[in-house]
Structure formats: structure tokens, C-alpha cells
């Protein structure tokens, strides 16, 4: 069975590399927002000034990091599920001896690995530049913490995004539902700006939600030199969210598929 899912991962990965234009666009998609944010924050923060505890170079690293995480984690599973349910493509998946969520998860891994491979040279160059110019220092432990946080972020993202996409079992058109979801998640995950910039009370509320684990938490681990106990306690909370969303997803999946069967006969 595992071989089947590995095959799906490979197909998903190869489909990205099959098209050279797709590769170029993916690179633009990762680079341009980072460049714009670099200019914006360079205009906002001068010299040794800090905002929300971030100085200029940390803010630049923050945005590069957020875009990197975006490329690695944020797979549009909800859009895909929405399209597959409404086009009837899901029937082709149901009829295979596969679990639907595992199928989509394998597709996501393949797609995200392709992104990672594409961005690896750029990230490496950027990392070397920051390291050589002493703009950013990192220990091996932090790197391990970040990698683990990134993997959990991908799993949590998948579960959340799958749940949102599952709404398509019940409703006909989700275009704006998914747009709103993206805007809200971008805001609450710290994609637009570091959550620490917000007033303290709002930061506390936002940080009690699971969205911070999609990008704010991994990037904070990387650049804010948090204590091991902080990382550990947050990771345990993140795992609890993963478990909770997993069971909700199983339930929604079962109910949704019953409804889908009704519609498709």
C-alpha cells in the first residue's frame, strides 16, 4: 500500500517539473513577494529601530522565511478538493483502493517537495549571504526545532485545508469562501506581518488559535532564539491540534462521502 502512495508522491513531483513554465512561475511566486516586503520594511524600519522585537534584518528574514514556509506548507488542497468534488473527479479517486485523505496528502507531499527542490539553491544562497554577513546566526538545535515545526505545520495545514475543502460536499460554489479563508488565515498565521507587532491583548488571542503554527511559530523558532521549553510546550499544543483536527476530518469525510454518494447515485 505504501508503494502506491509513494507512486502518487512521485507523479505529483514530476508533474511540476514536467512543465518549465510552471517552474519559473513558482520561483516568481516565492521571490517577488519577498522582494516587495524587503523594500517595504526597509522603508519602515531605520537603523537599529525595532518593531515588535524585530529589527530590520530580522524582519527581512521573517518575510523570506514566511514565503519559504508558504511554498513548502501551503498547498491549496481546499481548492483542489472543491474542484474535484464539483467536477465529479472525486469519483475516480473513490473507486480506487485508496483512502481519499491519504491520496491528497501524498499529492501534497510530492508537490511541496518539488517546491522545496526548486527553492533549495536560492535558500542556500540566501542563507549563506545572511550567515557570512552575520545578519543571522543559527544553532543546530534551532535547525532541528525548526524542521520539526515545519513538518507539523504541513500536517496541520493539510488537515485544516482539507476540512475547509470538504465544505464543497454540502455547498455548490466555494470561490469566495476559499478567498475569505485565505485572507483570514494569512492574517492570523502572521503572513502579512509578525503577530508580535499587534497590541498585546490581540496577540494573546491570536496565539491561542492554531493558525500561528502555519508560519508564525516556525519562523519565530528560527529567528527569535526562543527557549527549548517554549518550543516544546508549543509543539505539544500543536500536536493536540493535529490530533483533534484529524478526528474531525475523519468524521467530516465520512459524512461528506455519504452525501457525495447520494448526489452521484
Amino acid at each position: 500500500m505504501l508503494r502506491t502512495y509513494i507512486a502518487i508522491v512521485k507523479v505529483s513531483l514530476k508533474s511540476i517539473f514536467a512543465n518549465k513554465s510552471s517552474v519559473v512561475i513558482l520561483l516568481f511566486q516565492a521571490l517577488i513577494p519577498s522582494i516587495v516586503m524587503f523594500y517595504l520594511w526597509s522603508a519602515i524600519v531605520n537603523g537599529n529601530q525595532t518593531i515588535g522585537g524585530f529589527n530590520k534584518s530580522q524582519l527581512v528574514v521573517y518575510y523570506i522565511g514566511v514565503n519559504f514556509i508558504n511554498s513548502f506548507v501551503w498547498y491549496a488542497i481546499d481548492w483542489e478538493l472543491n474542484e474535484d468534488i464539483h467536477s465529479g473527479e472525486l469519483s475516480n479517486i473513490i473507486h480506487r483502493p485508496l483512502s481519499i485523505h491519504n491520496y491528497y496528502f501524498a499529492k501534497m507531499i510530492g508537490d511541496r517537495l518539488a517546491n522545496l527542490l526548486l527553492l533549495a539553491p536560492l535558500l542556500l544562497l540566501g542563507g549563506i549571504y545572511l550567515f557570512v554577513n552575520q545578519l543571522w546566526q543559527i544553532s543546530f538545535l534551532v535547525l532541528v526545532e525548526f524542521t520539526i515545526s515545519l513538518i507539523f505545520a504541513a500536517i496541520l495545514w493539510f488537515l485544516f485545508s482539507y476540512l475547509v475543502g470538504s465544505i464543497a460536499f454540502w455547498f455548490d460554489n466555494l470561490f469566495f469562501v476559499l478567498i475569505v479563508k485565505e485572507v483570514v488565515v494569512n492574517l492570523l498565521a502572521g503572513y502579512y506581518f509578525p503577530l508580535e507587532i499587534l497590541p498585546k491583548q490581540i496577540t494573546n488571542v491570536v496565539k491561542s488559535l492554531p493558525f500561528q503554527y502555519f508560519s508564525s511559530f516556525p519562523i519565530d523558532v528560527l529567528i527569535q532564539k526562543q527557549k527549548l521549553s517554549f518550543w516544546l510546550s508549543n509543539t505539544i499544543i500543536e500536536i493536540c491540534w493535529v490530533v483533534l483536527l484529524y478526528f474531525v476530518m475523519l468524521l467530516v469525510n465520512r459524512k461528506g462521502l455519504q452525501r457525495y454518494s447520494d448526489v452521484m447515485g
Partner: protein
Amino acid sequence: MKHKIKLIKSLIKIALLESVSFRLDTLFGILSSILWLGIPIAFFKVIYLNVDTIGGWTFQACLLLVGVYTMLDGFLMAFLVKSMPLLERDIREGTLDSILLKPINTKLFYFFRSIEFTQFINAILGLAVIIYACQGAAIKPVQVLLLICSCALGCILYYSLWYLWTISAFWFPTNFGRTDLFLSMIQMSRYPATIFRGLGNLMFNVILPFGLVACPATVILLFPGREFVIVPQLIVALVFILLDHYVWQLGIKKYDGAGR
């Protein structure tokens, strides 16, 4: 001309029926309009809690910029947010033939093909922010006239950029939609154009003129005596109109040549 107007009326009628058919989506369309405006305002508000200016722009100036951008964005998103992905899909999958064979201008057809009416709420909210941000400012009639002209030029640039990006699928087809990248790039139009320096200035204010979409209109309203900013906007808009036409013609030739 009469025939064209009749056709446009029919397309608008179809789009209106499509828009109201999906109630949940319409509701979320309205919600997205509010968020689309609220988030950049919140963003700037949070930033200005920490600093006084961004590239020489005060909070009031940024608020006005967000208002102008949102108004233009809402207006054009209504026409393009669903049409451009359809055009791209038709180019990619070879179904453009059926549209080319229709007795209607293809650009016109795609412009009115799928209107998302909820986006007009965005435009109205944007206008409300402009009025709010201009409170207390002594604005002359000539500034208002130039503002309208600048907004029209901004619309041309917005449309051209999205259109060129979409029809680049003639040469660079992708196995996923490219709208996302445009939508994330156009958002830089709501930042002051002065943040881009050196190479960034050339890149984002001339080659990809996102900085010329909403900024000149804001400058015209807020800084009397700097109305000349409309001149480079006019020149770039004219260049992009010609470029649109030329690239489309090339694309059609390429499309035929591909034998799809």
C-alpha cells in the same frame, strides 16, 4: 454598435444570474470585500503605531492610497477575477477556438463574460475611504478632474498587467492557474511607490508599473503642485495599451501555429 450593446446586456444578465445562484458564496463575497479593505487598513494602522512615516507617507496618505487602490481593484476584480482564469484555461486547453469563432470582439467577450457583482461593494467601500481620508483637505475641482483621469489610467494599467500576464499562457502554459501570482503582485499597488529605490523603482514603477496604478491619483489629491505625476502614468498606460494589442495578435498567431 447596437448589436454589441445587446450582447453585453445579455452577458451581464447571465453573470448576474450566476452571481446570485450561490447564496453562501455571495455572502462570503460580501465578507471578502470588507476584509479586502479592512486588512490593509489594519496593516498600516499597526505599522503607524510604531513609526511616523513610510517613505515620506503619513497614515492619512496611506489610508487614501488604500481607498484609491480598493476602489480600482474592486471595480476591475468584478470584471476580471473569474474571466481571466477562464481565458487562461481556454488558451491552455485549446478551447479558445469556440470564442474566436464568435462574431464578437474576444477581449470584450472576456471582459463581460463572468462579472462578480459582489466586488462592486469593494469599489464603493474604497470610495467611502477616499471621502473619509480627504476630510479637511482643501481640494480644488481641477484635482478632482485629474483624479478621475488618473483612476482611469490606473484601471488601464491594472487591466493590461493582468491581461498580459494571462495571455502569456500562449507561450508559457502551466499546469496550474496563474491568477494567484497576479493577485499577490497587484497588492503592491497599495504601498507607496516611493518605497521602491534603485532597481526596485525601475522594476515596480516602470517595467511592471504596479506603483503607477493607485499612487498617482493619491499624490494628485494630497500634494497640490505635484499633478505632473499623471504624465508618466499616461505614457506608460499608452505603451501598455499598444503592448496588449500587439501581444494578443502574436499570441493568436502562435495559437494557430500550435495546431491546437
